[in-house]
C-alpha cells in the first residue's frame, strides 16, 4: 500500500481461518488501521491481492457487506435516536441477507441484553456514557450476525472496568457465534487475553505471527525463576527453567518455598521484537 511515494504496507501476507480471533499489534504508524480498512473495503490498495470471505473487498457487493461487521468508534452520530430504535432499524438492512444457517438480523431485545444495555434501551444515544456508547457500537457491529468482525482499537479510552466488561462481551460473542474476529489494539494484555493468534506489524511488515505463547517462546526462551529458601528470596534468569527447577528441588527439597517461574509475556516479547526491528 502506497501513499504518494511512501510505502506504508509492504509484503504483508497472512491468512485468517474461520473462527479465529486475531489481534493486529504494532506501534503507531505501523499500518494497522490501513490494513484493516483495506480488508473492510473502505480503502483502495495500490497493489497486491486481497480476499475477504472469498471476495476482493474493492469489488464487494451488498451481499458481501452483509456478512461483515465493523465496530466503529462512535462520537456523536445518531444522538437523537434511541438505542432500541437504532438497532431495530439497522437490523432491518440485514433481514434479506439471512440464510437458513445464519438467520439475520439478531433479535433486538436479545442483542441489547447481550451488550448489557437493557436498562438504556429507550434512552437517547446522546445521553449514554462513554462505556455504554462503545457497547452500543459493538451491538451495531454485530446486529447482522457477521461471519467476520472488525474491531479497530475497541477499548481505546476505556477505564479498567469498562475494559474488562468489553473483554467478557467479546468472549461471549466468540463462544456463542464462532465468529471470526480481527482486532487492532495497543494493549498487549488485551491481545493476550482475547486473541488466538497475534500478528505484529512494524514498518509496514509483519515481524511476528503466531499464538501469544508461541511468539513469547520463540522470541526468548529465557524465564525468570524466583524462590525462597530459609526466608531468603532468590531470583535467577535461565534458558532451561524446567531443568533448573528440578536441580533446585534436588538440592533443597522441601525447603524451596514460594516458587514462581515467569516466562516472558507478550509485552516483553513485543518490546524486544519492535526494538530489534527498529535497529
Amino acid at each position, binding site marked *: 500500500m502506497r501513499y504518494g511515494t511512501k510505502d506504508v504496507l509492504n509484503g504483508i501476507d497472512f491468512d485468517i481461518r474461520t473462527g479465529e480471533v486475531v489481534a493486529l499489534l504494532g506501534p503507531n504508524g505501523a499500518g494497522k*488501521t*490501513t490494513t*484493516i*480498512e483495506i480488508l*473492510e473495503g*473502505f*480503502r483502495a490498495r495500490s497493489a497486491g491481492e486481497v480476499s475477504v470471505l472469498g471476495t476482493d473487498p474493492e469489488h464487494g457487493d*451488498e*451481499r458481501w*457487506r*452483509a456478512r*461483515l461487521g*465493523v465496530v*466503529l*468508534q*462512535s*462520537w*456523536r*452520530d*445518531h444522538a*437523537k*435516536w434511541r438505542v432500541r*430504535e437504532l438497532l431495530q*432499524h*439497522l437490523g*432491518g*438492512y*440485514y433481514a*434479506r*441477507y439471512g440464510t437458513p444457517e445464519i438467520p439475520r438480523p439478531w433479535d433486538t431485545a436479545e442483542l441489547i441484553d447481550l451488550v448489557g444495555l437493557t436498562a438504556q434501551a429507550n434512552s437517547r444515544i446522546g445521553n449514554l456514557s462513554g462505556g455504554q456508547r462503545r457497547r452500543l457500537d459493538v451491538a*451495531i457491529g454485530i446486529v*447482522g450476525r457477521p461471519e467476520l468482525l472488525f474491531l*479497530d482499537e475497541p477499548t481505546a479510552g476505556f477505564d479498567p472496568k469498562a475494559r474488562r466488561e468489553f473483554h467478557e462481551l467479546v468472549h461471549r460473542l466468540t463462544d456463542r457465534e464462532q465468529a471470526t474476529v480481527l482486532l487492532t489494539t495497543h494493549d498487549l494484555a488485551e491481545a493476550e487475553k482475547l486473541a488466538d493468534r497475534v500478528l505484529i506489524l512494524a514498518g509496514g511488515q509483519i515481524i511476528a505471527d503466531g499464538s501469544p505463547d508461541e511468539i513469547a517462546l520463540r522470541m526468548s526462551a529465557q524465564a525468570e525463576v524466583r524462590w525462597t529458601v530459609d526466608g531468603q528470596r532468590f531470583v535467577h534468569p535461565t534458558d532451561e527453567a524446567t531443568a533448573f527447577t528440578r536441580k533446585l528441588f534436588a538440592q533443597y527439597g522441601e525447603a524451596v518455598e514460594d516458587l514462581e517461574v515467569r516466562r516472558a509475556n507478550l509485552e516483553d516479547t513485543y518490546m524486544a521484537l519492535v526494538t530489534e526491528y527498529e535497529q
Partner: protein
Amino acid sequence: MNRLHVARLGIARGGIELRHALTYWPDLVQALFLTVAQLVVLFLMRGHQVPGTTFSLGSLTLPSVIGMSFAFGGLLGVVGLISVDREDGTLLRAKATPDGMAAYVIGRITHIASTTLVGLVLTLLLGLLAFPGVHLTAPGAATLAWVAMLGLLATIPIGITLGSLLPNPRFIPMVLLPFGALTAISGVFYPITHLPGWMQGIGQLFPMYWLGLGMRAALLPPHLAAVEIDGSWRLPLVFLALALWAVLGLTAAPPVLRRMARRESGSRVAERRERAMLRAT
C-alpha cells in the same frame, strides 16, 4: 425486489428522522422560533402597502417567504446535515451497512422533504387566516403543488452536492454568506422590479427567485402580477427554471456523492473528530 427493500428502509429512516424533528424539543423550538419570528415580522408589515397599490406588503411577502423556506430547507438544510453526518460518522455507519448508503440518501431526502412540507402547511394555514389577500383557489392549489414538488427537486440534489463537496461543517458559512446575498436580490422581501437591472439578472439565475414567484402566483390575486417583471407570473418560465436546476442537481449529485462516500473511512472520521475536538477546547 432490492430497490423496493432499499426504498422502504430509506423512507423508514426518513420517517424516524421526521419524528425526531417533531418531538425533540430543542430542534422544534429552534424551527418554530424562526418560522414564528418571520410571521411576526410579516404581520407587522401588513399595514404597509405595495408601492402603487393598496395591497398589504406583508401579504405580498408571505408567499415569497414560503418559497425561500424551500431554498433554505432543501439547500442550506441539506448542506448542513450531510456535512455534519460526514463529520460525526453517520455516513460511515451507512457505508458499513448493506444498502446503507442508498437508504441514507433516500432517508435524508424523505426527512428534508417532509419537514419542509410540514413548514409549508403551517405557514400557509397561518397565512390564510391572518393575512388579508392571501388565498387559495383550486388552480392556485395545483400551482402550489407542482411548484413545491419541483422546488424540492431543484434544491435537495444541489444541497447534497454542495454538502458532499464541503470538507467539514466549518465551511458552511461559505455557503451561508452568498445565500444571504442571494436572498436580498431574489425579490423575497422587496419586489425584484425595484432593483437595478443587473441584480435582477443575477437573481433570476437562481431557484430562490423562481420559487418565490411560483408561490406568489399560487397564493395571490391575479392583479398583483403587475408588480412582477413583465407584469406576469411567468409560470412557464418558473417551470423551466426550476426544472433546469433539478436536472443540474440530479446529474451532479450521484457522482459527487459516490466519490465522497468512497473516500469515507474510520481514520478519516477519526481525523475530523480530532480536529473538531482541538477546536472545541
